């Protein structure tokens, strides 16, 4: 295996907080929610009321903003639904008794205030909002908080691509087995050949053991100039 220096490779595992989703949105939670991070899958399930608890995090309940850029970004990038679709979904739960319509608030400040005082509440606000009295959650990084990365293998930069100055970032969703091994890697974005190299490396990573399988998202950047 070549060293990162010789490969002139810049790599880093970044949180999804670095992507468009979290550039627009800050996730916040009541202090009773005992996690520092949540995956997109879990977050979506919480907002669709399929999940009412998080592994190790206790009871959770979603809080909505009525409108605004954070609301639009959250719907588009996390839930993949329009506002009208989401409202109809919640109404279908409320009118069959299978759930309730989440608390919906007018402003980022109101969301922060409500989340701060409400047991289990999770909300989203614009990235610049002051989040006092609440916990700020990372998105897609359970591994950082709950599954410590113990052993990391760097990918081989395909020589042809490097010579032609082809680089970029590969985004992957990975499933980590309870034993700590990476059970599954799904490349979600980036050059296909770089994705292959990145996935091969990530499959060799080793995380801290845990009681259950977890998911997370990781990104690796390939910089041909370095």
């Amino acid at each position: 295996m070549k060293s990162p220096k010789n490969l002139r490779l810049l790599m880093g595992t970044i949180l999804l907080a670095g992507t468009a989703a979290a550039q627009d949105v800050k996730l916040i939670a009541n202090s009773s929610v005992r996690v520092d991070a949540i995956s997109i899958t879990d977050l979506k399930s919480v907002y669709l009321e399929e999940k009412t608890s998080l592994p190790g995090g206790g009871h959770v309940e979603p809080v909505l903003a009525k409108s605004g850029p954070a609301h639009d970004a959250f719907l588009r990038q996390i839930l993949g639904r329009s506002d009208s679709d989401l409202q109809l979904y919640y109404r279908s739960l409320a009118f069959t008794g299978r759930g309730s319509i989440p608390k919906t608030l007018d402003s980022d400040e109101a969301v922060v205030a409500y989340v701060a005082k409400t047991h289990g509440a999770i909300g989203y606000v614009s990235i610049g909002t002051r989040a006092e009295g609440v916990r700020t959650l990372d998105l897609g990084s359970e591994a950082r908080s709950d599954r410590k990365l113990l052993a990391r293998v760097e990918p081989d930069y395909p020589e042809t691509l490097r010579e032609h100055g082809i680089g970029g970032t590969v985004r992957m969703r990975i499933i980590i087995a309870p034993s700590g091994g990476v059970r599954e890697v799904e490349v979600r974005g980036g050059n296909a050949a770089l994705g292959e190299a990145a996935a091969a490396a990530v499959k060799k990573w080793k995380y801290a053991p845990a009681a259950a399988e977890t998911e997370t998202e990781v990104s690796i950047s390939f910089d041909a100039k370095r």
Partner: protein
Amino acid sequence: MRRIALFTILFGFHQILLNAQDFKLFDRTVQFHGFASQGFVYTSDNNWLSMGSASGSGAMTDMGANVSTAITDKLRIGAQVYDRNLGHLGQWHPTLDWAYADYRFTDWLGVRAGKVKTVSGLYNDTQDMDFLRPFALLPQGVYPTAIREVTIAHKGGDIYGHISLGGKNGSLQYTAFAGERDDSKYGGYFYLEQTPPPVLVLNSISALQYGGDLRWNTPIKGLLVGVSRFSESNEGDGQFDAGAGFMPFSQSSKADWNNQFYGQYIHNKFEVEAEYRRSWIDEFLYSGAEEVQTNAKAWYVAGSYRVFRWLQVASYYSDLNVQSPIGPFGNSNGYIHDKDVTLRFDANRYLNFKLEGHFMDGVGVPGVYPGGFFGIDNPNGLKPGTNAVVVKTNFNF
């Protein structure tokens, strides 16, 4: 007049309700929600849905209101009252639509007990709430609104859960149910059996219902597929008069089930869905003196597109094919092909209007499986084709 007064009162509360859908009671948040809708139907030729629709009818009103609260993080309770007046059905007699306690042990295992809406197909449990979908009327072969009481809810319980299959495989939702049928004597099933001759009055019907639903949220974003099974074993009693005075009547089912397969795909403003339902009913009537078999196959394909925030266009084609190899009408069969076009106008998220056209061929076999047509409403006989215009408005909070 009663409808006008009701709607005036409800509209007066409209603005208040929009901003206050919960309140505190003993330090718990109690949510309350409600809806009301009013429709008008005009049909060519045949009367439809037990209404005098061939002359134009506004006897199409329904409403509901519910309260619910979380007792603990895992336990919820709630109840909903529902009332409707659809032609000769409902007749303003309110019913307890659902009322149950829901305990979720974990995300993949929960139980509900009480009177529970029956999950079957895409819309069985939400078929009354037309504000949840583009259409004023669902395809009647799959969701016959006239006999909604037969399948809408059960007094018993559900076991349900949501299972994540990992990032690549999507997730599963399952529901298994069992309970007692809770039919209403103002419902379409009782109305159906009045069809002469002979004159028949059903007093009561009881049935054990059981089944389940399994749906897969596939890894393809927006794609859902599922399957449902519904079975019942019923017994009923009443009186009939074949011309020599009333005599005791009884009925019992030998087999009564339906299987339903469905899929739905949502992409941004576009939605398409399809369902297929096969029903098989084999009953003994008149204390076993007569057997009636009904084999109904129904399917539809529907699509919708939200053109603007305030306008949605939608359409479906539905097909109902009914065979009754043994029964009061001999070996009979029939069909209904319904082509629907709908415009939905949303004034805001609480108030909408719908304009809908139906172009139907055939009337099915009304005496055994009402796809919307009843012989009793069409004493001069049914004509083969029916066009309908439906105008409906709804508000909900």
